């Protein structure tokens, strides 16, 4: 009797907290407009909509679409990987014109949903289905290598020891784009630079990130770039403790250590989402395709706080290089193979 009573209490407590922590689930805001109101929703991955990273950025993009374009927007947060499918189905049932899946983790689920509901439009961030993209789906990729090239160039110019580190989360293509773009940028600034590279094999373990960064600093690096999610927090912490430089990723991470974050390679998920929403409202939907956002359309960039630490002369050079990347004069490698080719062509 006591036992069962307790179990009931515990479970209801748990459920209520889970509900509360989900916060404003599927917050739909109405817009009184006589024209056809478009309705766009997104499913976050497990980071949640306030993760101060790409989920948050995605929601900011949609919020801007609501403000500027009068589109109805809403979101659902996923608490675990198993939530993706139910969340996609919930949004399907609520008559959206377009449903976004945020993050490559959701790739299989979005594809499944897209095949089941051919009349519903879907889009996914950070994933491309290549030739197999269903006609009702858009894949969105970013040229992370372009922003990474720029921060790499800054690092190459700013390093006093001629040694620079890169800490990656895992050995996967999206991290390679950061890594090899960065490597190329560093060598472009100073071909003699020695680059240390190591993977944390984790996007969460801050202690590992910190230990790797400490090792790089011990070996003489004075700037370390991280593309390692939560493990990257450890890298920035190490820079803070040693009073050396770290470079942030995805968003302007300067707030984590204002004195020690040199710059950040930003990925503007918000701009991509806004752009796709705008096109949809104008009647264009590039179904079956993969869209790639780059420096040119504001899909990636370097952080505005870069100017706090980097001298104007280098900033001017960076601006010039940015133009050359946009015009195609400078290419940026996105994989190891491309990097080797790039090195042959550009570094004597």
């Amino acid at each position: 009797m006591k036992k069962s009573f307790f179990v009931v209490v515990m479970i209801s407590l748990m459920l209520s907290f889970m509900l509360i922590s989900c916060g404003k689930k599927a917050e739909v805001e109405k817009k009184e407009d006589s024209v056809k109101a478009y309705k766009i929703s997104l499913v976050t991955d497990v980071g949640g909509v306030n993760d101060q990273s790409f989920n948050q950025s995605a929601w900011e993009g949609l919020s801007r679409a609501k403000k500027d374009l009068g589109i109805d927007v809403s979101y659902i947060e996923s608490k675990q990987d198993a939530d993706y499918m139910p969340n996609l189905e919930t949004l399907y049932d609520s008559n959206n014109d377009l449903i976004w899946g945020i993050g490559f983790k959701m790739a299989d689920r979005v594809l499944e949903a897209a095949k089941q509901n051919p009349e519903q439009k879907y889009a996914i961030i950070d994933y491309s289905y290549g030739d197999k993209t269903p006609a009702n789906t858009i894949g969105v990729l970013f040229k992370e290598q372009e922003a990474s090239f720029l921060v790499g160039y800054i690092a190459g110019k700013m390093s006093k020891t001629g040694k620079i580190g890169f800490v990656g989360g895992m050995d996967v293509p999206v991290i390679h784009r950061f890594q090899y773009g960065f490597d190329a940028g560093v060598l472009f600034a100073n071909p003699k630079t020695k680059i240390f590279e190591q993977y944390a094999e984790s996007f969460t373990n801050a202690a590992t990130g910190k230990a790797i960064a400490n090792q790089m600093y011990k070996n003489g690096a004075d700037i370390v770039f991280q593309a390692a999610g939560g493990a990257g927090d450890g890298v920035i912490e190490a820079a803070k403790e040693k009073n050396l430089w770290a470079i942030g990723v995805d968003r302007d991470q300067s707030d984590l250590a204002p004195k020690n974050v040199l710059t950040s390679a930003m990925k503007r998920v918000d701009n991509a989402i806004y752009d796709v929403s705008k096109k949809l409202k104008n009647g264009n939907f590039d179904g079956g395709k993969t869209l790639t956002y780059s420096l040119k359309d504001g899909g990636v960039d370097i952080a505005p706080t870069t100017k706090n630490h980097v001298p104007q002369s280098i900033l001017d050079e960076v601006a010039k290089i940015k133009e050359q990347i946009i015009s195609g004069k400078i290419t940026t490698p996105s994989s190891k193979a491309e990097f080797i080719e790039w090195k042959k062509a550009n570094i004597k």
Partner: protein
Amino acid sequence: MLNNLALIIGVTLMYSTPLIFTALGGVISEKSGVVNIGLEGMMVIGAFIAATVGYYSGNPWLAFVSGGLGGAFFGLLHAVASVTFSANQVVSGIAINFLGPGVALFLSRIFFNGATTTRSIDLDNKIPRLLHGIFPNDSFLYYVFDNQYATSYIAFILVFIIWYLLKKTVFGLRLKSVGEHPAAADTLGINVFRIRYFAVISSGFLAGLGGATLSISVVSNFRPTLVSGQGFIALAAMIFGKWKPIETMFACLLFGLAQGLVIFVGQFDFHISSQLLNMLPYILTLIVLVIFVGKSVAPAADGIPYEKEQKH
């Protein structure tokens, strides 16, 4: 070469400190006969509260202790469930593991404008690094101790305090007797409930300190993925250490050492995939477990709720 060794030792200490706090919590609780798989959830809440109090008060010690108290509160919940109401201790522990992150996220959104990541704490307001700047740059001791936060030393001191408590004091003996044969202890006039309450709440306190170590020593902010499984590693270390404080400490150090080795070996351009390399801590654990440790036996009444009217 010597400096590389020093760096590995440094990583070992940093990595094992949160595990030691938490695993010690596990030892105390299970010695009294209450299984505590809620360590993970208690770590999460401890990490969150420490980061929040640290950010707003600027006092690292207040933050550290608050983190512990947060864990202790969850320990209290676990105790109410598993001691007073004789609930299944595993179920209650799992509930704590859900509740911890849930409450942390909920509060984080209130205190940090909807953000699930807390604001970063300045280096000056973190736990002090006791031996920072004492040793000359590039010396062996510099790489071992310069970057160690006071929490690392506290963890080792606690190991001996708890060892002493369990081994040399009347109270420790009572605690163990409650974990081995609560009915016998009861007939001798020992208050089983009170001792188990004490053990489970202190277990939560220690796990909270472990979490706090992560958020205000290892890094300087809390994010929902910060703990990600370390509570379970601590639980494994406790079993590995045969439910004894000193052995458990060595188990934690072994995990830390394996991590240090992975990071050290990972810097060389071997043709081993880094995924394989990262299995090293677990493979090492298996090997040590099979060859050196032998049978690990839990306290006899571990996991069994004690009910007075129960007939034996």
